[in-house]
């Protein structure tokens, strides 16, 4: 099967007043249709920048693509015309962001916002309301006929994120990019949303890129994993084998940081960066 997405030697630089920052350094990734990939790394490791780069959502300038290509369905994203790019955004590659409460526009009802997405990418849909109800039901919102008239502030965090997912899915994208979708939610809701993502991915045969700093949540959700550290992919492979047998010292350190129930250690492990820097070069 052909690759849905292929990133080749991508480098992204930010020009700032305090000099240039290389946020992403020469990374390569590929994703098959319906496959799933976790991009793991700490804050500032370049994972969100990579995600936004997929549809050129980064503001240029200050961002700048210094090298590489992004191929989506064998089409170079970096060379796309604005119209084509807008069709891809949402229509083929949909995003879910970290803060559901601020990702929804406070002045519009859920119905209004989902219908905007549907009208943009599926203008042939006649009964938009029925479609909205269908997607809200799909993501597990109870009583969708009533709830769709709610404004974002009337929904709980978990429901807001479900509404965001419904909005993303309603355009029937072939790739869903979830940028830390559960970070702002509490742990029980986190588990629900992740389970929902897993189910929906299987149901719609949709590829998924899950961006997270929490290595503990990806098991069972993503087939492959890419570990990013300071703009580079330091480890890339099968989720199970990477988690069982990490090669790179940073991956080992990340896995060692996961708190374990019943562990007799007094303190949680932290990452020793000075040591990492020596081994990384």
């Amino acid at each position, binding site marked *: 099967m052909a690759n849905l997405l292929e990133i080749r030697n991508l480098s992204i630089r930010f020009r700032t007043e305090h000099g240039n920052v290389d946020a992403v350094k020469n990374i390569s990734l590929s994703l098959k249709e319906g496959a799933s990939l976790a991009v793991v790394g700490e804050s500032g490791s370049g994972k969100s920048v990579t995600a936004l780069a997929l549809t050129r959502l980064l503001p240029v300038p200050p961002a700048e693509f210094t090298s590489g290509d992004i191929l989506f369905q064998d089409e170079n994203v970096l060379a796309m015309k604005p119209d084509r790019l807008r069709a891809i955004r949402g229509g083929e590659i949909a995003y879910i962001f970290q803060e559901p409460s601020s990702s929804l526009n406070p*002045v519009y009802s859920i119905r209004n916002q989902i219908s*905007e997405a549907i009208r943009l990418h599926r203008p042939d849909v006649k009964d938009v309301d029925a479609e909205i109800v269908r997607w809200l039901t799909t993501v597990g919102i109870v009583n969708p006929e009533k709830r769709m008239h709610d404004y974002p502030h009337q929904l709980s965090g978990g429901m807001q994120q479900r509404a965001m997912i419904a909005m993303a899915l309603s355009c029937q994208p072939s790739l869903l990019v979830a940028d830390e979708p559960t970070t702002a939610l509490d742990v029980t809701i986190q588990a629900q949303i992740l389970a929902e993502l897993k189910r929906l991915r299987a149901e719609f045969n949709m590829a998924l890129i899950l961006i997270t700093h929490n290595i503990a949540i990806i098991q069972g959700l993503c087939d492959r994993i890419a570990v990013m550290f300071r703009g580079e992919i330091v480890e890339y492979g099968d989720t199970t084998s990477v988690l069982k047998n990490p090669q790179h010292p940073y991956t080992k350190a990340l896995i060692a940081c996961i708190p374990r129930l019943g562990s007799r250690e007094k303190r949680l492990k932290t990452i020793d960066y000075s040591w990492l820097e020596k081994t990384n070069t």
Partner: protein
Amino acid sequence: MNTPAQTPLGRILSRFRRDRFGMIALAGIVVLFVLALVFAILSFARVPFPMDPNATDLERKLLAPNPVNWLGTDNLGRDLFSRMLHGSYISLTVGFVAVAVSLLIGVIVGAVSGYYGRWVDNVIMRVVDAIMCFPTFFLILTAVALLGPSMLNIIVVIGLVSWTGTARLVRAEFLTLRETEYVRAARSLGQRTPAIIFRHILPNAFAPIFVTAVLGVPAAILTEAGLSFLGFGVQPPQATWGNIIADGKTYMLDAWWLIVFPGLAIFLAALAFYLTGDALRQAAETRAERK
């Protein structure tokens, strides 16, 4: 869900309704508006209400307020109340239309400046700074002197010089709002830039824009009154609050009503708009919400 679904605008209005001063001021505006509207409709239908504001009657000149002429008459025997009604119609028209013109320019310029930022913002804001350097009132006076005094010219000129404040405000709102997650989400959905500006950002800046608009009306009314007083406004015999005072000041010691009533009208109208604007601003500040 016990509470009914409330739109953000609905929340502002329900908080406004609890503000007693704001409601009294709003009632004043409504009364003024109704009077001007009734006058405009009736004079359009050529029905004098309560009498023709330009009909002279030299036998009844400079009369103090009496049962026939409720607010008295001027030196030509014209009914002051009718003339003031005509003035209210002029003042409100100038106030609202001039503000509409200045809003239209200010919102578009501010939105473009704040949304695009960088050099676009820099160029636009320097132009705004330059315009703000002119003493507004004298700029208007000069423009009206050149273009000729008419209601349309006054409206256009006031609108053209008073948009800078709105532009700055809208720009500031856009600078913060364009960084919000929902704007990024809208872009990630493939939304067009104009739709992001006008559909996603502008409604979120509605409250402060609405407040400045309400506060802009009395400023325009006062400017028009000042121009008319100096003789650069709407031309006699058409009555405005400003030129009634200008004509009446010669007789001010014998006929106090000729300057007191139009003066009061200007003062109360401006006060009503300012108080309403202030109450709206307080209602729009979510942090000021009290139980």
